[in-house]
């Protein structure tokens, strides 16, 4: 049931059937039918663009609810580093962790040190890898989905090291279970997420059989309650494990900033990702060892479920560094021993999910391609999206795949009406 896995749902009450999201969708996944925007499950990468552009607040993230916490005997909140970046220097990361506990989690678990560990593991992986180059980071789950769908040939380029959030959840669950004598299933691990793509990665993980996380709350929904709590209670939790090097991971460029291998590149935002990845596919950029790439323009601080704008968030983070002290928290020895245990490894293979061809048989596909080209001649090429598809080419594609009809185009319909009318008028004169 792939439908249930997607992280964004359309609110039927609020959606007016305008085509803003359909036109903005980077993978052309959305069609508007009967005044309702719906995403094609095969094409959606959960990037959250539709949510961002919707003027009617009709696209909602499928986050966990407070009731979900009650299903577990012990709950752990793992905040995205971007959560710390929401608050200015008047609120220390330790206060944020303290306030999270006050909201009802039994404990919090900082993942910044795990980010630092993964930087070390990635360095070790790069030094031993034999290619293909460049290697690509798997931090951004929307990016991984994009690779599966649009760049299946680049799957061997993905670094097969699990993300810090998953590794941290795996490690903490194991420890809590041992410390408290609980069944691992009785422990609830909840991520505090900056984006919808991570929510989807929990429900439908890639590189894993099952996520180590049990759900996610959005930064946006917790922001207000956290702020209120911090104003009421100035308490702070210990932050000796918080790694400033790891914290930088919240921003584009942060992942490579803590790595030894400097032959790397940061690619920011979907538009640039497509530009660069098209070229990687064509064999360029082979001299680069490592690429960190984000669908969002500045990395996680620009995620769709955040409150502070990405500029404010980056400034806030920079202000937090001196409060924490720039200590290295991770020992190289520890990284090495975990590497030997294969702690960082992917647990499952990443599968290609290429877009369906027009037909399975080559001759049939060519016939449909010709049909599509002919349709393009009949369509107005105004890309008005009034038909519900984002542009004329996508409509032509949908028509030859038998999903819709040419008469869905308002211009074609208008033309037909006019023809009918002039034929009638011609008849009257006779």
């Amino acid at each position, binding site marked *: 049931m792939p439908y249930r896995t997607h992280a964004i749902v359309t609110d039927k009450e609020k959606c007016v059937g305008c085509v803003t999201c359909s036109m903005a969708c980077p993978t052309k996944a959305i069609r508007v039918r009967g005044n309702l925007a719906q995403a094609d499950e095969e094409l959606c990468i959960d990037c959250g663009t539709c949510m961002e552009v919707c003027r009617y607040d009709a696209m909602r993230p499928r986050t966990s609810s407070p009731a979900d916490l009650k299903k577990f005997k012990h709950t752990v909140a793992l905040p995205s580093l971007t959560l710390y970046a929401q608050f200015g220097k008047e609120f220390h990361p330790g206060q944020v962790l303290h306030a999270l506990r006050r909201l009802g989690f039994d404990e919090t678990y900082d993942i910044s040190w795990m980010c630092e560990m993964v930087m070390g593991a990635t360095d070790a992986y790069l030094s031993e890898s034999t290619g293909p180059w460049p290697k690509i980071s798997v931090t951004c789950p929307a990016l991984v989905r994009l690779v599966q769908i649009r760049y*299946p*040939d680049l799957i061997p380029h993905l670094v097969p090291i699990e993300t810090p959030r998953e590794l941290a959840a795996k490690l903490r669950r194991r420890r809590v279970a041992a410390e408290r004598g609980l069944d691992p299933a009785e422990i609830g691990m909840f991520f505090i997420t900056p984006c919808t793509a991570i929510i989807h990665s929990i429900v439908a993980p890639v590189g894993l059989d099952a996520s180590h996380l049990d759900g996610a709350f959005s930064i946006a929904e917790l922001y207000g309650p956290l702020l209120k709590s911090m104003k009421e209670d100035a308490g702070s939790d210990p932050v000796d494990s918080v790694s400033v090097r790891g914290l930088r991971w919240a921003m584009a460029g942060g992942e490579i900033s803590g790595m030894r291998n400097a032959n790397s590149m940061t690619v920011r935002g979907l538009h640039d990702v497509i530009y660069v990845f*098209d*070229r990687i*596919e*064509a*064999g*360029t950029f082979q001299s680069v060892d490592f690429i960190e790439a984000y669908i969002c323009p500045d990395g996680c601080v620009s995620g769709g479920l955040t409150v502070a704008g990405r500029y404010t968030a980056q400034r806030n983070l920079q202000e937090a560094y001196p409060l924490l002290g720039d200590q290295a928290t991770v020992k190289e020895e520890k990284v090495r021993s975990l590497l030997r245990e294969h702690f960082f490894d992917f647990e499952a293979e990443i599968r*290609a999910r*290429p*877009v369906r*061809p*027009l*037909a*399975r*048989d*080559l*001759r049939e*596909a*060519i016939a449909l*391609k*010709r049909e599509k080209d002919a349709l393009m001649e009949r369509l107005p090429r105004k890309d008005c999206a009034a038909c519900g598809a984002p542009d004329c080419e996508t409509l032509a594609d949908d028509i030859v795949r038998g999903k819709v009809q040419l008469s869905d185009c308002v211009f074609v319909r208008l033309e037909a009406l006019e023809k009918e009318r002039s034929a009638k008028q011609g008849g009257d004169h006779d």
Partner: protein
Amino acid sequence: MKPPNPANRPGGDEIKDEVLYSETFRIVGNDFEHGGEVATRVKAILKQLGFPTDTIRRLSIANFEAEMNVIMYADEGTLELAVLPNAVRVTVSDRGHGIPDIEWAMQEGHSTATPEMRARGFGAGLGLPNIRRNSDEFNIESTVGVGTILRYVVCANVTAGS
């Protein structure tokens, strides 16, 4: 100039020379701004037609190199895509200086690229060898002062691959 290597072909099938679909794209010399666009368009067509990802990858690399060669060295040219029942044939013809010594140009590291081209990341002398490496049949003819015709074939068993 190089005999086809039947070992590269899936199942050693004979390439059937029946053109099922063809399309010709124009390439303008020195038009770096649009460099790579033809290769991208061809890739989109091949994906729609359901070619295996490996075939598309090899063709994309070859097409990109061939397109950039026209942009860098010729006045103008065309890339003709021909879809055959079990292969894709690409013919890139250009009007330009031509290549005086093909043997020399076919060796890795040999390039006549200008410093400007090198500054753009080209001119490593890998273009033509890279096209040959990624194709199952490769043929090049060039006349100095007239132009170059490059023809390469990448085999694919579409039904088996999909």
